């Protein structure tokens, strides 16, 4: 199998998986080595886009090895970097969702300009992610808690969970009063 890699710009690298049938954990290990090497080359805020347009089917071992293992380690091995998928079919979306659910994980899928989560997604996570995805600027926990009508502790818990899952990014910023605070965003 030969997977093609394009650099769209500094912020985004694309890995196009060659299908149509992707079987076995062993095959996924080879691609994961490629994925890890790309993630190593990214800087904070960069995104690896895995393009599945040529893929019709993969088995669960493949999905767990490639997407599951990468997402499990993303936030501590490559903090601030993202791996997202695009061009899924209804069938591959359903199966990737099941694989991620089995691991209590979620991933970002991009469809056109829309971002959404697939996998194990609690409605609270979805609400938080959607709010961040729609925001053009980084947002603090305080501002987001006001927007969603939550107390700050609950907001911090939600944001912490999504950061650990590698679905949002946390950077240091400063408030209008000049105080240091964390700011959150999805992708750039």
């Amino acid at each position: 199998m030969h997977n093609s890699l394009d650099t769209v710009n500094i912020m985004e690298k694309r890995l196009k998986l060659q299908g149509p049938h992707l079987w076995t954990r062993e095959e996924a290990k080879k691609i994961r080595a490629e994925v890890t090497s790309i993630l190593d080359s990214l800087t904070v805020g960069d995104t690896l886009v895995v393009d599945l347009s040529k893929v019709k089917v993969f088995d669960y071992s493949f999905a767990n090895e490639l997407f599951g293992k990468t997402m499990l380690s993303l936030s501590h091995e490559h903090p601030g970097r993202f791996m997202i998928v695009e061009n899924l079919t209804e069938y591959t979306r359903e199966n990737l969702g099941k694989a991620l659910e089995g691991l209590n994980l979620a991933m970002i899928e991009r469809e056109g300009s829309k971002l959404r989560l697939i996998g194990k997604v609690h409605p609270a996570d979805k609400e938080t992610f959607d709010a961040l995805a729609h925001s053009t600027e980084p947002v603090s926990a305080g501002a987001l808690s006001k927007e969603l009508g939550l107390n700050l502790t609950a907001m911090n818990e939600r944001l912490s969970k999504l950061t650990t899952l590698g679905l949002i990014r946390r950077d240091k910023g400063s408030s209008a009063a000049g105080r240091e605070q964390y700011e959150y965003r999805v992708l750039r």
Partner: protein
Amino acid sequence: MKKLDSNTFDELLQEQEPSLRKPPSFDLREIGFVSPAGLVQLAAWSYQIARRKHRPRILVDDPSVRSYLVRAGFASAVGPVADIVPALNGDWGRYFRGSNPMLIEVTRIESASMLSDLLDRIILVPRQNLKYRETDAYDIAIAVSEVTQNTFDHNSSSYGFLSMQVYKSNPPFLEIGIADYGDGLLSTLRRNPKYKEIDDDKDAIAHCIRLGTSEHDDLTRGTGLHHLLEITYKHEGLVQIRSGNAKVRYRMDKRQGWFFSVATMGGVQIALNLPSKVSD
């Protein structure tokens, strides 16, 4: 007509005690029909006996069964380790693997690299013969992929065997048999300290069908049998999982499973029956 399938294999194993005979012999002289699951279980049994430095014999009289053993690839798969008695004549060359669109001949599964072609055929057969939609056929290939990966992931010195046959009965259906003669679920599971308390085959099967149960302490492992059951349920099939001296049969139109005690045989053996989609 007596048949050899995933059920009667166990009955014969119990009645005949073929491994204890000298030489070890499986007597199929009263058998008039053999299913894919029966074939691969017999192949796994033959290789298991051969590992103990014996050359087993398989006694077969019925001409149609003898012919089927050749056409279904069984004779060539077990030829290196077992004798079919009386010996087959020299007609082997008349049959070519892949020439029957309703059959996947007994195939030895040794590594991941050989799975791709096999799974492509598994997608094709139900699509051509049982009106499966593309994604339904993918489901079957996923189930087979997960189970066959187990055979070489967890066993280093044994093989697995796979066979598949479409039956144009009323209603039509397909059967897939996958069998190995490796360490079996109990021994494999107990390599993980988390499961060392498990001490019988029935419990081992019950654990292994849960998502994430594996010999490896790795969240991403332990997908095979769980997804086999989910996919069988989705397509309202029947599945039997056998290991050691226990087996479970699931009837998925009712999502109900029954456990049985059976005569001991090493390894893991799976029989999967799926209905046609003609009425869809």
